[in-house]
């Protein structure tokens, strides 16, 4: 049976030492190992950014697409092979900037995909521009006088889009993050795990220390009920989006592929795609 080891490959990530993405990589590997999945049954689709490199750093099928489009590719993969465990991953710019529309639509379309965003509130790979999750007033290369746009709240918009599973992790806590990813994969439908994954090179505000100081684990709230959407919305508002843990899960939501008319249990990729003569002739007849 598979273990975390089998999800490690011999490639050294090209991230800066200390980058939060290492912990995300480790958490994904552990989660996949813990879930006893086989590497060949996992596909990780990523976007462009420092974070986007992650699809090459997990021993599984990996697809590194273009900037902001990991989710459309991932959904295509799922359509073709519903047996695969499909993960999508990328940065905050990739997912909530250029890719925001895809994210919202993927959430409401609800295919069984686990989306992991490495949120560092910065554009890392392009060297330090502000991102959609950069706070108002944040100074970056492109906001020398301070950001004058309001940050997007990944948690609020995910809930507004009707997401069925929502969690937030932090690179500092690999065991929590591992569990959240596992839970996301287990959830049947679209799930987002937003991860505070500090960029040690370009974001000197939202550092590990900053997150340690400002985030609060939902475990601190014994009454918190993640199946209650209203409670989730309130908690997200109250903590200014800085809570970690499982925020919301709707277990009753049916995933897309179970709703498609005529969709078979056997994945598309394993079906015989030849159509028989009869069907051919009959279908052609409709044009007479």
């Amino acid at each position, binding site marked *: 049976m598979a273990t975390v080891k089998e999800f490690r490959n011999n490639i050294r990530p090209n991230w800066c030492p200390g980058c939060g993405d290492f912990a995300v990589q480790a958490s994904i590997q552990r989660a996949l190992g813990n879930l006893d999945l086989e590497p060949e049954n996992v596909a990780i689709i990523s976007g462009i950014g420092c974070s986007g490199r992650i699809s090459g750093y997990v021993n599984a099928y990996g697809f590194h697409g273009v900037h902001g489009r990991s989710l*459309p590719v991932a959904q295509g993969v*799922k359509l073709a092979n519903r047996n695969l465990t499909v993960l999508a991953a990328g940065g905050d710019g990739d997912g909530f900037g250029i890719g925001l529309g895809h994210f919202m639509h993927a959430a409401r379309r609800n295919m069984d995909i686990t989306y992991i965003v490495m949120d560092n509130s910065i554009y890392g790979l392009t060297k330090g521009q502000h991102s959609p999750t950069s706070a108002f007033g944040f100074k970056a290369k492109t906001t020398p006088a301070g950001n004058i746009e309001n940050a997007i709240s990944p948690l609020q918009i995910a809930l507004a889009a009707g997401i069925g599973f929502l969690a937030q992790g932090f690179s500092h806590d690999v065991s929590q993050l591992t569990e959240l990813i596992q839970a996301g994969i287990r959830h049947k439908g679209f799930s987002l795990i937003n991860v505070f994954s500090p960029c040690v090179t370009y974001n000197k505000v939202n550092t590990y220390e900053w997150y340690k100081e400002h985030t609060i684990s939902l475990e601190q709230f014994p009454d918190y009920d993640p199946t209650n959407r209203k409670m989730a919305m309130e908690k997200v508002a109250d903590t200014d989006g800085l809570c970690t843990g499982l925020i919301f899960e709707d277990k009753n939501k049916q995933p897309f592929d179970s709703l498609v008319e005529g969709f078979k249990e056997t994945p598309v990729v394993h079906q015989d795609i030849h*159509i028989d003569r009869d069907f051919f002739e009959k279908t*052609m007849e409709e044009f007479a």
Partner: protein
Amino acid sequence: MLQELSWKVGGQQGEGIDSTGKTFSTSLNRMGYYIYSYRHFSSRIKGGHTNDNVRVTTEPKSASADYLDILVAFDQETIDLNGGELRDGGIVIADAKFNPNLPDTLSSNVKLVVMPFTKIAEEHGAVIMKNMVALGATARLVGLEANFCASVLQSRFGRKSQKIVDQNLEAVKAGYDTMSNEQIDFSAFKLAPTTPDKHLFMIGNDAIGFGALAAGARVMPAYPITPASDVMEYLIKKLPKVGGVVVQTEDEIAALNMTIGASYAGARALTATSGPGLALMMEALGLAGMTETPVVIIDTQRGGPSTGLPTKHEQSDMYAVLFGNHGEIGKIVLTPSTPEESFYATVDAFNYAEKYQCPVIIMTDLALSLASQSVRPFNYDAVTIDRGRLATQEQLDQVPTGQMFKRYERTEDGISPRVFPGQRGGLHHVTGVEHSEIGRPDEGKKNHVLMMNKRLNKFNGTELPNSVSYTGDKNPDILLIGVGSSIGAIDEGTERLRKQGLKVGHVQIKVLSPFPINTLTSYVNSAKQTMVIESNGTGQLFHLIQFFGLTHPEMKSYLKYDGTPFLPKEIEAHVKGSMIAWQR
């Protein structure tokens, strides 16, 4: 007696003009006539002039007729806009309701028959049946049975209610009878008989949709756009029957990226769009090329630039398809001319995509996509499925442990073995970044050159089968070159000129990439003069030929870009004019 009939019905959008034309043409097709039916419509839902021009022939034709014999008008605008197309002795049949009149320019040569379509329809139960009345009148005029459209009405309404069928047929009969009372030389309009040959009747988009179904396409992510939407809408009905799925995506960017994902994971997948959507697909197109992911993209050209003329004919996206993505990738571009070719080109497209592991674009134009035509039945046995170079499990088992599968192995022909996620032993990486044989990012100088060569040289020197078709004279005085739906008009023009004693040849280009430059060069060299005929404002095909190094002092460009397809007479006149000018 008419050897062929050109009939047009016109009125306001939303009034059922479409279905009138369709009932007429489908009925005649079932009788064994050949039909070419072209609709004029505009980018609004209700209101605004629309018409359907149906050409009825006893031999296959793939163009509208030069002139109208009969114009059925439901409003004055129809007469004003289309009357000029009537030939001498043509007839306008118009609804009495709007007090039709012929403009002075027409009155001397054209006959106006005013009939109370609306009133008769009302008497038979519903105003909406005025169309049926008009069909009956037409039937009488051209010598068809009054129940000529019974089978079509039965298929259309039979499932709803037999009463509706009967009512409609009565309305047809009433129109038929009313026309009988007119003082017309009916024999002059009698349509020549035809052999009851069986053929299909469809638009090019239907043929593509059916072709995709037959070729094993099972995933179609797409976004609606005129004139491509029918492909998606057809497959929405059909794919559920074979375990496939259509997803209406949020935009075209998602559509092509999702198609790439589906194909990467082993499905045959396609998307369909038109100019504005194609523009949005450029980045993903490059990704498909770079990752050697087989995808099939249907691009139905319409009038441009920008939103342009969404419901009008043009062939102005050839450059965009060939050159629009940044950087350099290999791709295949097929340009069928007829629905029949579109069907087989679609089957080919999926095979080529997987054989060459590259994007394949099937490029049509609005006339091909939307004109309804009689089509020979497709041959089931001619549909083969070739999934290209897939790694076998034995090959995968030989990948040493700890190593990745060489998805991008540099082979002699540049084509590497593929695997699909889920396959044991096939782990590898895929990226739009330049990469090594196992798909790892690799920015090295040597690697980039080798990989560029691998991707670009796959079809070096290759000409795909049936890259062109040729008709007409060998060593012609003038060679006509066209692409897409213009085949019918150019062929007719060619035939007429040949009958006049001119030596004319006609090449229609069926593949834009890899461009069949060698074949074309020998044709051009065999001719004294060449004319490249296309529906755009800059001569894209003309320049494309030059692009590949073929120039010729006597190569001329003939462009039409008013939103309508070429007519045979236009080809005839223009070519003749050019030859006269040249001989002088």
